[in-house]
């Protein structure tokens, strides 16, 4: 990156990092209050409705739920800053909530990352080509495909893919994250672990398990990114500066890359960031269909059991991922668009 871009972008990143930590703090407070205002509660979930007041009081005291709520919050923040999120009370009682996060989260991230990768790699070129051949058969076909992508529920698509590719034709594994090959665990990201330890059969197995859920999960972001790319390219093609570029006799490649796509990417990049949120939500359903062992299952149990520690750490971390991705989006925005930098 040239020097004149770096300086302003760095200042921009620092400003945004400060804003981001503010967002996380406010979010932690809202999340904390919201979880505790849900009907029922940890104690009822563990002891049942007919527990005696004495045993309820004992458990409340043991879990620290008898203290004033602001005190509970400050204690939570103080511990969270040291990386302690308390023990699970429902998902795996007694286990450290952060441990549960560490074992579950990489699966969801791996799945979401592959899904968004598939979506973007297919949708952006296709959106460009569709816009350039506006009204042609390819354009119409891909517009219909993207409509189907948005309209079909993710879990239904997941079932279809599983039925045909795994059960009927036996091309890909039915469920799980990996065959039991006695793989070494390093980061919890199974594909990455296999590459790091040179156990390539482990990576390959993990990748094969990822394909069906990732394609199911990719359907909606693919459709959205495709539509936005197509619309953005159509807009940019009408711009005067594209006509100027044509008047200069520039090659098609330069016009496409520097003049059309670079400008069209601005709305697309924003959309990708927003899709990451929807993706994490969709991952919960997809994981269920493929018994994928990500945060989806854990979240569902944690909700039933009002497992505050696990809910807090999982939701806060998911939100942090969302905020960080959108920070990355904004940074790439500042790199692409000089007008953002100086604002």
């Amino acid at each position, binding site marked *: 990156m040239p020097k004149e871009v770096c300086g302003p972008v760095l200042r921009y990143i620092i400003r945004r990092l400060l804003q981001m930590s503010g967002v996380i703090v406010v979010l932690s407070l809202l999340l904390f209050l919201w979880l505790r205002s849900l009907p029922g509660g940890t104690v009822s979930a563990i002891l049942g409705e007919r527990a005696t007041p004495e045993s309820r009081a004992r458990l409340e005291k043991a879990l620290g739920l008898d203290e004033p709520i602001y005190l509970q919050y400050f204690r939570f923040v103080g511990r969270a800053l040291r990386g302690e999120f308390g023990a699970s009370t429902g998902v795996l009682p007694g286990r450290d909530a952060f441990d549960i996060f560490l074992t579950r989260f990489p699966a969801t991230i791996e799945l979401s990352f592959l899904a968004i990768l598939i979506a973007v790699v297919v949708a952006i070129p296709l959106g460009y080509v569709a816009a350039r051949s506006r009204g042609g058969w390819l354009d119409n076909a891909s517009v219909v495909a993207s409509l189907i992508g948005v309209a079909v529920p993710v879990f239904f698509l997941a079932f279809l893919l599983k039925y045909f590719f795994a059960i009927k034709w036996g091309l890909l594994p039915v469920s799980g994250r990996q065959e039991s090959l006695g793989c070494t665990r390093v980061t919890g990201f199974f594909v990455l672990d296999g590459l790091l330890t040179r156990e390539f059969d482990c990576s390959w197995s993990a990748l094969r398990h990822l394909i069906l859920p990732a394609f199911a999960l990719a359907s909606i972001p693919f459709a959205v990114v495709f539509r936005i790319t197509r619309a953005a390219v159509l807009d940019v093609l009408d711009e005067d500066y594209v006509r100027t570029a044509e008047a200069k006799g*520039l090659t098609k490649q330069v016009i496409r890359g520097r003049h059309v796509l670079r400008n069209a990417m601005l709305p697309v990049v924003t959309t990708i960031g927003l899709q990451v949120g929807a993706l994490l939500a969709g991952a919960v359903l997809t994981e269920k269909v493929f018994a994928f062992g990500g945060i989806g299952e854990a979240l569902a149990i944690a909700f039933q059991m009002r497992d505050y520690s696990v809910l807090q750490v999982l939701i806060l971390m998911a939100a942090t991922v969302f905020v960080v991705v959108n920070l990355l989006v904004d940074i790439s925005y500042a790199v692409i668009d000089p007008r953002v930098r100086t604002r």
Partner: protein
Amino acid sequence: MMSDAPLLSVEDLTVTFGRRGQEPFRAVDGVSFQVRPGQTVGLVGESGCGKSVTSLAIMGLLPQRGNTVSGRVDFEGTNLLELSTDDMRDRRGRDIAMVFQDPLSSLNPVVPVGVQVTEVLERHRGMTRKAAMPVAADLLRRVGIPDPDRRIKDYPHQMSGGMRQRALIAIALACAPRLLIADEPTTALDVTIQAQILALLKELVEDTGTALIMITHDLGVVAGLCDEVNVLYGGRIVERGARHPLFRDPRHPYTNGLLGSIPRLDAVGERLTPIPGSVADNLPWDHACAFAPRCSQPIERCTQVTPVLEESFGRALRCHNPVEVPR
């Protein structure tokens, strides 16, 4: 600097826009004119008269779908309309360049101005970005951008309107084209800047011997710049002449009307005489004079017979009842 062999010869250029569910629309209807090397020619008329479409057709920049272009556009003996898109791409920006109306929207907002200059040199001169940068800075200096070594890194939004138009002119002149087409280059600018840009264009074409087609609705622009003027109405040329005779004795009522609508400082207290109606009131040229409904002196023949463009003594006129020359 002028010779007699034309640099550009447009013959019977017709551009038809297909419109879904409607009659095709002839935006340019048999336009012929010539530009000699180093000459400055004006194409003048109201919006919708076909002057911009003419220039885009010469450049090969009209959208291909739904449009039909016929006639000839000979540039140094080659009919540009018959060139392949790749061959035309090689010529655009090198042999013929263009300056557009709105300098802000005509520059790419996310690319530094310097790169927008160098990319033409990289494309047509085979220069590297690095080698082209000082050349680009020099071009910016020539078009009057102060401190070009610093300005070359600026983005379009960091420049003023006048500077952006200067940058666009630098881009157009980067490869020393033999023909420059300027489509309303001053319309989007402040009046004071307009004069500067016109003076700059005039100086540059005189210095480099570049021929210039000036497209404008503003006869004031033409008066200061052009050797020859073509007046367009409804897609056809209605009058042509060298600048001085045309301005002194306009023969077509439309030209006369255009001149009458220019505010003049030496005519304080006199009312402007606008041309009534708008281009939308056009008759088709097929059976009548398209200007007849708005004409100040129509005769019966004007609505019955299409007038032809008659040439005599370097003037051309398409009118049944021309304005009398006062003697």
